[in-house]
């Protein structure tokens, strides 16, 4: 990343004889430092994805879709092929890629504005067609990159820069429940909602993402993992309070759990 970071790194003593590596950066991430804000869980979710890919040994087959939103530069961090997609269109681009290259394992990484608002049509139809792709859907209930505007997933009464008196559901409707909605479609093989605000949630998130990739590798259909995250900066909270808010307030509105698992259905 920057020279300063590389200098710092050079000062860290290398492992010496008698030491063994017990934890290291996943191979699917490169050595670029995350640029996400304090209190943001994009980095943790990237890590979950990278670890799942490493464990499944599918790095060479991976092709990623970067969305428009805070993770627009996701390809700075992942060490495999990436394409940056127009806002909301990642599932359509992923459709083109996967059909052109069925050997690829395709990851569409999208936020709530991208997926649930401007890209609602693309996600619904990709899911309904049963596209063999894995969508990791970051739901932080707000537009992060553009500076805290109301998202389709913003909670009732939630103050944002475009709902200064709180989200009025008589004007803007209630928050949209993506995985519940998509789980009704026959093309969907796996749909789970997890949370990234605490270690327990992250462990489940990684498991869910790994399962989704496995289902894609088996050709079972469309897979999506919705991950509840916090946006500390735009909700004017400390990272700690933001995580707590996800665990308490967001969790009340967005239930975590598996909404569709084609294998469980038999």
């Amino acid at each position, binding site marked *: 990343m920057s020279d300063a970071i590389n200098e710092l790194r050079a000062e860290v003593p290398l492992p010496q004889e008698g030491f063994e590596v017990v934890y290291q950066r996943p191979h699917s991430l490169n050595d670029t430092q995350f640029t996400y804000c304090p209190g943001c869980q994009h980095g943790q979710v990237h890590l979950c994805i990278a670890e799942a890919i490493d464990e499944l040994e599918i790095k060479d087959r991976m092709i990623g879709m970067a969305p428009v939103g805070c993770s627009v530069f996701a390809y700075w961090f992942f060490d495999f092929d*990436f394409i*940056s997609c127009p806002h909301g269109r990642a599932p*359509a681009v992923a459709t*083109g890629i996967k059909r052109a290259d069925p050997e690829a394992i395709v990851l569409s990484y999208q936020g709530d504005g991208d997926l649930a608002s401007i890209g609602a049509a*693309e996600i619904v139809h990709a899911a309904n067609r049963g596209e063999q792709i894995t969508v990791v859907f970051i739901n932080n209930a707000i537009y992060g990159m553009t500076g805290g505007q109301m998202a389709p997933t913003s909670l009732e009464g939630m103050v944002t820069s475009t709902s200064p008196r709180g989200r009025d559901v008589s004007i803007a409707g209630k928050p949209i429940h993506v995985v519940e909605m998509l789980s009704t479609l026959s093309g969907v093989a796996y749909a789970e909602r997890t949370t990234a605000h605490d270690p327990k949630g992250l462990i489940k998130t990684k498991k869910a993402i790994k399962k989704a990739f496995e289902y894609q590798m088996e050709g079972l259909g469309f897979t999506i993992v919705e991950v509840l995250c916090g946006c500390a900066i735009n909700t004017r909270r400390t990272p700690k309070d933001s995580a707590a808010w996800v665990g308490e307030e967001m969790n009340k509105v967005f239930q975590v759990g598996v909404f569709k698992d084609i294998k469980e259905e038999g």
Partner: protein
Amino acid sequence: MSQMTAEAMKDDLAWLPKGRQLMKGNHAVCAGAIRAGCTAYFGYPITPQNEAIEYMSGALLDVPNGIFLQGESEVASINMVMGAAAAGRRVMTSSSSPGISLKQEGISYIAMMELPMLVMNVVRCGPGLGNIAPHQGDYFQAVKGGGHGDYRLITLAPASVHEMAEHAHLGFELACKWRNPAMILTDGVIGQMMEPVDLDAIPVVDWKKPDWAMGVNRTGRKPNLVTSIWLDPEDMAQKHLEIIDKYERLKAAEVRFEEYMCDDAEVLCVAYGSVSRAVMGTVRKLREEGMKIGLLRPITLWPYPYATLRELAKKVKSVVTYEMSWGQMIEDVALATRLNPVPLHFVPRHGGLTFNPNDVETPLRAIYANPQNSDTLWEIS
């Protein structure tokens, strides 16, 4: 090669469009594309190009590794095209004016990503929903950009059904050579018309995934990135300069046009696509009467044959532009002739009305008799 192998090969190629056939333009473009190595099509129904999506929906089932998908919208379709192009396929889409407007977002991204792909616009009359009759009102959109940002589409204007097939091949060749999207700009006259097509004259291309593509040679290389974002203005400026340089080389190398009886012409007609057919018929007829009239038919609308037009215009008394629009290509004619002013005339057809030979001939006789004929004289205003 043994007889059996030859037989097997023959069967293997049953999917390949071939022979001399009477075809609709909308079919010919697809047949030509498949010969040129197109294995993927994504589109959405809209009149008057439905024959294209319908043809591909069947034909691509038989093409080895063929992909056909009817997208949920034009917006989705162009993004599917983006994905397949990024994955190294020769991929096309087709639509008509309102649908092409919806595709512009994706086309802008594709241009900046420097992905090759082919899009056909069977132009209908606009603005808005307009009607489904032939028109040329999307000229500016095609040749001056279309979506947001600076970019150009390689734009081809077929004037016959055979050229529809030929231009599908040419479009893919130029798009891949220059890594730039290409557009076939046509209308319902050429799209719906049937004419003989010599498919055997269209080269057969066995397209291979290029090195820059997603997923190519998967192991032991650095990640390939396809993007249209360069956040640092310095980096973006560098990227712009590279593309500008590419466009300059493209302009120098790829201009295509047809000159028809221009050598001793006193009046030069300029028309493209279906309109050029009506004009050519009239030029032929009036030549038989001894009138010295020629036709310049741009085949590439971008890059535009400015230099040729400039030289031809030096030798004539007036230049007449025929267009089914409110006046678009005429501005490029004016650009081409700006240094040696010659009377410019503009003869339009509106509302989706096409040019009958009479619509060409009557004003042409008046202009031939009087290069300053005020009824058709056009000036930048």
